[in-house]
């Protein structure tokens, strides 16, 4: 289980249980991810569930192809990534658009509200535009209380309309990452 971490977002996973419950209720059985501090609690819930398969990826685009193959075989996935990973997925998303395959991805945002790291800004700011350009429907969430309902709606939207849907978990929702040290 968890090893101590210093200052990453969402250490207590306040919304993680409720989002996990939504994934269970919607029969999501495969959870590919590139980890992010904001997803930590949800990842651990999924890893602890013997009826779910959490798959660590080397790059986020693997998860797009994995989820596509799994859905053709009858299994629903939710892909977890950070906003920087959206850029790694761009061409692979053509698979979903062309084949009209559903997918929900939960994207923890960086490069916006309270960001510390300038290198996160370009991809974070481009994330919604990049997703929309590749045919992904975008739902942004700022309030953790609303997140489980938003994820439930995203799953219904995706699987009812054969659409990829991204839920953006804003940095305001997650809490901005803080770094110690000076200079």
């Amino acid at each position, binding site marked *: 289980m968890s090893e101590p971490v210093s200052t990453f977002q969402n250490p207590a996973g306040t919304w993680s249980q409720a989002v996990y419950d939504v994934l269970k209720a919607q029969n999501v059985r495969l959870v590919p991810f590139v980890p992010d501090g904001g997803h930590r609690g949800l990842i651990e819930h999924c890893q602890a569930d013997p009826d779910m398969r959490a798959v660590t990826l080397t790059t986020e*685009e693997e998860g797009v192809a994995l989820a596509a193959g799994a859905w053709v*075989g009858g299994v629903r996935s939710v892909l977890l990534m950070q906003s920087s990973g959206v850029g790694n997925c761009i061409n692979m998303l053509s698979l979903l658009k062309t*084949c009209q395959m559903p997918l929900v991805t939960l994207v923890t945002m960086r490069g916006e509200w309270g960001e510390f790291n300038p290198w996160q800004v370009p991809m974070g700011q481009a994330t919604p535009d990049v997703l929309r350009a590749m045919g992904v429907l975008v739902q942004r969430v700022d309030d953790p209380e609303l997140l489980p309902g938003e994820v439930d709606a995203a799953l219904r939207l995706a699987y009812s309309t054969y659409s990829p849907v991204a839920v953006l978990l804003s940095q305001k929702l997650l809490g901005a990452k803080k770094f110690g040290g000076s200079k």
Partner: protein
Amino acid sequence: MNVSRLERRAVMAQLLEERGGLLVVTGLGATAWDLASLSDSPHDFPLWGAMGGAAMFGLGLALAQPDRPVVVFTGDGEMLMGLGALSTIATTRPSNLSVVVLDNERYGETGSQHTHTAAGVDLAAVARACGFERTTTVREESDIPALRVNLHAGGNPLLAVVKVALTADPMTLPPRDGTYLKNRMRAALLGPRAIYE
């Protein structure tokens, strides 16, 4: 340097003899045309794009359909674009997934430029280093029947590199409508109700 005389379509045809319920995914380009020259089945999913994603698509299908053997046929260029997938497959350890790289050491669709396998990059060794317990490099026709048996048998993930000749094969196109490919395979695997979900 590739001195193989194996012809890619003859290899694929042999490997798919009496294929039964074997599910076949291909990468884009030559392996898709190869499959189309042999088969047009609901159990086929030839990709037309998504370069670097064939093995991962196969992994998803294998995890969702654990009772059916799944074989991914792809080229050396496509596999090189998604090398990380080999580590993800090895650590995920499906019991029904094989990847066959038809390796002509060229980007065959774009003017036959060398891929890195022409310079000696060994995809079977990469797979072994990632944790694949079953890997093989096939250069002789006499090794094809044993590989065919292994593709159907299941077990830990298998990666086979088949060194093939650079050949000019007719471009035989599979259906290009991805929604058709998707619905056809879903109906075959999940029953007609899958279309109404």
